[in-house]
């Protein structure tokens, strides 16, 4: 099958101006490669910092919200008075009633991956005279590990020991350094309820977050309950992880309907971080868009030049039966060919840059350079490149279509 005559003419125009057309196409290449590359960098960075965040933060948290006394008691009828009082926090205990039954309920939801109860308490570490403020999480360490992959942050020791030993503790690296303690050393913990416990260090972790590493410790649930002077049915929070963290907002709303306590997703808790992410993404896209506009101008320019050199040809084509639409097709095809060539090379270069950078090893705790891409980035980049070329071709093509052959022939 031979190409249609419009395409054949377009190809001839392109082959007789290979160099200029290639340069115009390379404009698109740069725009698209830049878009894909910077977009993937951004996504990689976001993904990395998300993962960092999810090392200590659950996707969804169930907890008892501080209650504020109602400031106003409305009058029941016109005869009685309205009482106004000073609003005050009325929370007596952070305890969830029957948390383990709630966990069973939550586990039934099919979007839920893991659920674990937390007994969070504030306490002081002490070793001889040194004292350090800290936060303890009483957890079933195996469940917590499934959620936060604590194992991967462990520098020394083992989580297994914490699962079996009620007097074991796993502490952050900063605590170990400040208190000058190591594996198998003892450390004294004093809770705000005045309970003192002597605990054995079985593990040391490092999350990469300084304040976490200088405060946090994992304890056995029972030990935490004892420090809080509470019963074995005590928990302060229920942590939930879901299969798709991006939909946490929706899942939290669903959970809220079946939970008697406050349900909060990470997106609500970190609205500020998400807003920054969004702004960064927009800025990135604006830069790529500006690049594409420059590329579009390149295509527009070369086509405009071709058309003003080819007024004679256009007049002849019109004289022998080509309609305005045919002329538009010819020049839009030229723009599209440049667009396709530029786009394909751009996609290739983008992919190569990503491939190279993703092999760069930065070292602990980051590891390989965080870069993330998906098919979508390439699809958006590609279709955008084609769309822009189409637009950049259409404007001069329409001008070509309106050439009056008689005016040309008279000259």
């Amino acid at each position, binding site marked *: 099958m031979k190409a249609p005559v419009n395409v054949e003419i377009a190809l001839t125009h392109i082959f007789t101006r290979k160099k200029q057309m290639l340069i115009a196409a390379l404009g698109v290449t740069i725009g698209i490669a830049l878009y894909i590359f910077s977009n993937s960098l951004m996504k990689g960075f976001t993904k990395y910092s998300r993962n960092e965040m999810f090392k200590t933060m659950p996707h969804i948290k169930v907890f008892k919200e501080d209650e504020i006394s109602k400031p106003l008691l409305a009058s029941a009828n016109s005869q009685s008075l309205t009482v106004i009082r000073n609003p005050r926090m009325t929370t007596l205990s952070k305890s969830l009633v029957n948390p383990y039954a709630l966990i069973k309920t939550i586990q039934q939801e099919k979007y839920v991956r893991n659920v674990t109860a937390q007994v969070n308490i504030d306490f002081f570490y002490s070793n001889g005279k040194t004292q350090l403020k800290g936060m303890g999480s009483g957890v079933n360490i195996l469940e917590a590990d499934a959620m936060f992959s604590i194992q991967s942050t462990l520098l020394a020791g083992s989580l297994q020991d914490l699962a079996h030993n009620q007097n074991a503790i796993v502490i952050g690296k900063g605590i170990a350094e400040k208190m000058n303690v190591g594996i198998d050393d003892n450390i004294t913990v004093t809770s705000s309820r005045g309970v003192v416990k002597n605990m054995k260090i079985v593990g040391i972790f490092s999350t990469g977050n300084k304040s976490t590493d200088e405060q946090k410790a994992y304890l056995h649930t029972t030990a935490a309950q004892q420090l809080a002077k509470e019963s074995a049915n005590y928990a302060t929070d229920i942590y939930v992880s879901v299969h798709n963290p991006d939909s946490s907002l929706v899942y939290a709303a669903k959970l809220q309907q079946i939970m008697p306590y406050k349900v909060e997703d990470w997106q609500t808790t970190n609205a500020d971080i998400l807003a920054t992410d969004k702004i960064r993404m927009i800025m990135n896209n604006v830069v790529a868009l500006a690049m594409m506009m420059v590329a579009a101008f390149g295509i527009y320019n070369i086509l405009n030049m071709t058309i003003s050199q080819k007024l004679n*040809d256009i007049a*002849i*084509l019109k*004289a022998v*039966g080509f*309609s305005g639409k045919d002329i538009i097709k010819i020049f839009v095809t030229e723009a599209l060919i440049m667009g396709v060539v530029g786009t394909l090379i751009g996609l290739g270069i983008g992919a190569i840059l990503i491939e190279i950078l993703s092999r760069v090893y930065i070292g602990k705790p980051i590891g390989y350079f965080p870069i993330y891409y998906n098919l979508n980035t390439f699809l958006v980049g590609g279709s955008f490149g084609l769309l822009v070329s189409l637009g950049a071709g259409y404007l001069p093509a329409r001008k070509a279509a309106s050439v009056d052959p008689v005016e040309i*022939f008279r000259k």
Partner: protein
Amino acid sequence: MNNKKIILSTKNLTKYFHEPVKFKALDSVSFEVYAGEFLTLVGKSGSGKSTLLYCLSTMDTTYEGELFIDNQKVTNQKTDELAQLRGTSIGFVFQFHYLLPEFSCLKNVMIPALKLGKYSHEEIEAKAYQKLALLGLQDQALKPASKLSGGQQQRVSIARALINDPKIIMGDEPTGNLDSKNTEIVFNIFRELSQDLGQTIIAVTHDNDFAKASDRTIELADGQIISHRKVYE
């Protein structure tokens, strides 16, 4: 010639140019052209021959009066319809040779037929060779159009005008750039086309012998027809 069929006619065709001053280039031109007729247009330089031909060709649509081709009113048709009409029914030869310089002679001849899409690529190629041979150019077929002499280019553009077997062939001084030998070749081809194939020829010419040998000559002066010299009847 009995039973004459009108293939093209004009009624009070009037054309003004507005730049630089308002100027009447054609003044109520009315005439009829018959199928298979070999018609020539003559007149002094500036008398309006080219202007009239562009109106007849359907490329110029800014005139007053009416134009009919093959019993259809062409005036006020849409530009796309006119392009289609040019592709199927009208072949052109321009005053100056107008070929697409980047294509071979063969391609130049083939392009109007490829656009029309009535025949396969192979059939069109064979036909194009045949038309080039008719004008003695079969050896030049694969050369780029820009590498030919002026007279050769002129003949290629005549071959191109013939490719779709149009009902009407129009030429603005089609032999203007040709020597007497080639002028004779072109004249004989036009003669054959009109006599044997029933194609209509409308040609502007300054060549008196050429005009005399045609079926009929219309003479223009200041945008008006001043004589119809009819050879037959």
